[in-house]
């Protein structure tokens, strides 16, 4: 097998050195009744060309070359090519976790820079080296608030990504943490009146997302005021990182739980992505996840090390802040390089383009369907209500290699025929106009059908 660097002569020499007659001797510790004496029923060994062919077929079956209007927690942005050039270097790709600092300075320094940039972007004082994704980052941030306040329940906005809420439910259930879900108003924002009522003396934190699942930017200040007045912490989840280029970060949050996938991470059918937790320095000892700190070596040279490891599983074991071990380091490196490529000026321009494309699309769609949540500002997603079921409209769009917005009935049935549309810098005017055209056609047919029925009834 071509990944195994041994010749039969090597194996023989080694067995001899060990004093074993055959390799079977070395597997003798396995009780005979369990030893497999047949081949595993997996596909036969393939040549490299066959492997590529097999996956190429899968790629074709997976709609390569389609334009998309999907967002909802996973965003299609351009990935600068140097990201892959750099992360494909073996010294990054095949390196281990940087426990041995002397021979991991490359990884450690890049994480330190990542932590710094996340702080600048989010307005927080300290950031960790990554969590699995936005959903688990949010759940872990909530657990942090529970530990810090000594309180046990959570008030969360229904406008938080439905799957993030599901994950929180799973984590909360086993810690006996009651969750109170707070509805949204017709602005798309959390209902602050209901929020007031939902917070009790046992509420550890309020969890909102901004921009939220509908793309609407929450009134973070108002929510913070209520939460803090009642002794609860504010956790803000951010799913679309590019928003931070043009939208004020939630500076009054106590903990920010981000998904950084928009920053140069491929959509990849849902993962791997890159969660991050950022917070204030005073909470650092309750933060989960790895942290890299700056220090000096014995000759006074600057260097970097993993630090505050006593929070983590390999030392604290059952009292750890989290059980996380492997995180998303290589993905965080992609995010790092992306932030460097765009930088201070580029991120703002990128965010402005997203804003412009979405405003244009919303404007076009508004001519044919009803745009919901119009009274609050939004970033790069909007919700449109159509007469026809969006699934049917999308089926027609798919024939033109366009993936339409996400039908929302499954998550928010009360919104009827609503769908969530996202535009990024990669959305073209042509495709937006085409989609708007399909919407127009759909509305027209629906109206004619109604007119015909009415006429029939009249007759």
């Amino acid at each position, binding site marked *: 097998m071509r990944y195994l660097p041994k010749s039969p002569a090597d194996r023989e020499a080694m067995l001899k050195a060990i004093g074993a007659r055959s390799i079977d001797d070395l597997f003798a510790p396995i009780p005979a009744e369990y030893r497999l004496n047949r081949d595993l029923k997996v596909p036969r060994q393939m040549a490299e060309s066959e492997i590529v062919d097999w996956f190429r077929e899968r790629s074709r079956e997976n709609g390569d070359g389609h334009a998309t209007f999907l967002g909802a927690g996973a965003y299609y942005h351009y990935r600068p090519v140097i990201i892959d050039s750099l992360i494909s270097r073996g010294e990054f790709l095949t390196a281990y976790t940087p426990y041995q600092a002397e021979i991991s300075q490359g990884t450690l320094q890049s994480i330190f820079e990542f932590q710094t940039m996340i702080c600048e972007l989010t307005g927080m004082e300290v950031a960790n080296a990554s969590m699995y994704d936005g959903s688990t980052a949010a759940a872990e941030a909530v657990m942090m608030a529970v530990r810090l306040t000594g309180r046990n329940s959570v008030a969360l906005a229904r406008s938080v990504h439905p799957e993030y809420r599901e994950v929180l439910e799973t984590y909360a259930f086993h810690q006996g943490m009651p969750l109170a879900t707070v509805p949204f108003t017709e602005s798309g924002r959390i209902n602050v009146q209901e929020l007031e009522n939902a917070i009790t003396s046992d509420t550890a934190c309020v969890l909102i997302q901004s921009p939220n699942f509908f793309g609407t930017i929450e009134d973070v200040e108002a929510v913070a005021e209520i939460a803090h007045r009642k002794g609860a912490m504010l956790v803000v989840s951010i799913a679309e990182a590019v928003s931070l280029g043009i939208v004020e970060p939630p500076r009054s949050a106590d903990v920010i739980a981000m998904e950084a996938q928009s920053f140069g991470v491929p959509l990849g059918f849902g993962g791997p992505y890159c969660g991050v937790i950022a917070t204030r320095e005073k909470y650092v*000892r309750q933060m989960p996840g790895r942290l890299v700190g700056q220090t000096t070596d014995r000759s006074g040279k600057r260097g970097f090390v993993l630090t505050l*490891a*006593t929070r983590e599983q390999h*030392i*604290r074991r059952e*009292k750890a802040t989290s059980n996380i071990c492997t995180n998303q380091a290589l993905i965080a490196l992609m995010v790092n390089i992306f932030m460097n490529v765009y930088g201070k000026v580029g991120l703002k321009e990128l965010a402005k383009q997203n804003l412009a494309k979405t405003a244009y699309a919303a404007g076009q769609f508004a001519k044919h369907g009803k745009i919901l949540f119009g009274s609050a500002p939004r970033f790069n997603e909007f919700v449109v209500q159509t007469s026809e079921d969006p699934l049917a409209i999308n089926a027609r769009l798919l024939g033109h290699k366009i993936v339409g917005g996400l039908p929302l009935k499954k998550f928010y049935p009360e919104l009827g025929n609503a769908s969530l549309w996202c535009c990024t810098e990669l959305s073209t005017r042509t495709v937006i106009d085409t989609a708007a055209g399909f919407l127009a056609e759909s509305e027209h047919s629906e109206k004619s059908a109604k007119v015909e029925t009415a006429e029939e009834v009249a007759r």
Partner: protein
Amino acid sequence: MPYPTDFKYTKEHEWIKADGNTATIGITSHAQESLGDIVFVDLPKVGTELTVGKTFGSVESVKAVSDLYAPASGTVTEVNGDLATAPEKINKDAHSAWMLKITLKNPGDLNSLLSATDYEKFVAEEGGH
């Protein structure tokens, strides 16, 4: 290092010095030596109730955490604020870098603790093998 004779000691390497109804608590020089460079001490707030034998906080070095066990029951009246910014004081002089002052609930708790000589013997035996 001589262990102060007016202290009493626990098998978990805490020391306690009684003064009528109040007592001062810290960890022994042997403890700080085994821990190595101390980086952080987690202590309870004033007013907290300590229960003899139960954990009341922890002390961290770079690679390890050690729980702190209450040598006696009582209420915390004072916490050594120095240790928040300079935990290394414990490494420098563990027997004067006190952690907590408490009002004793049962001064009799101290009777079952080790004397300086007994503690010295205990440490020697522990490290023996």
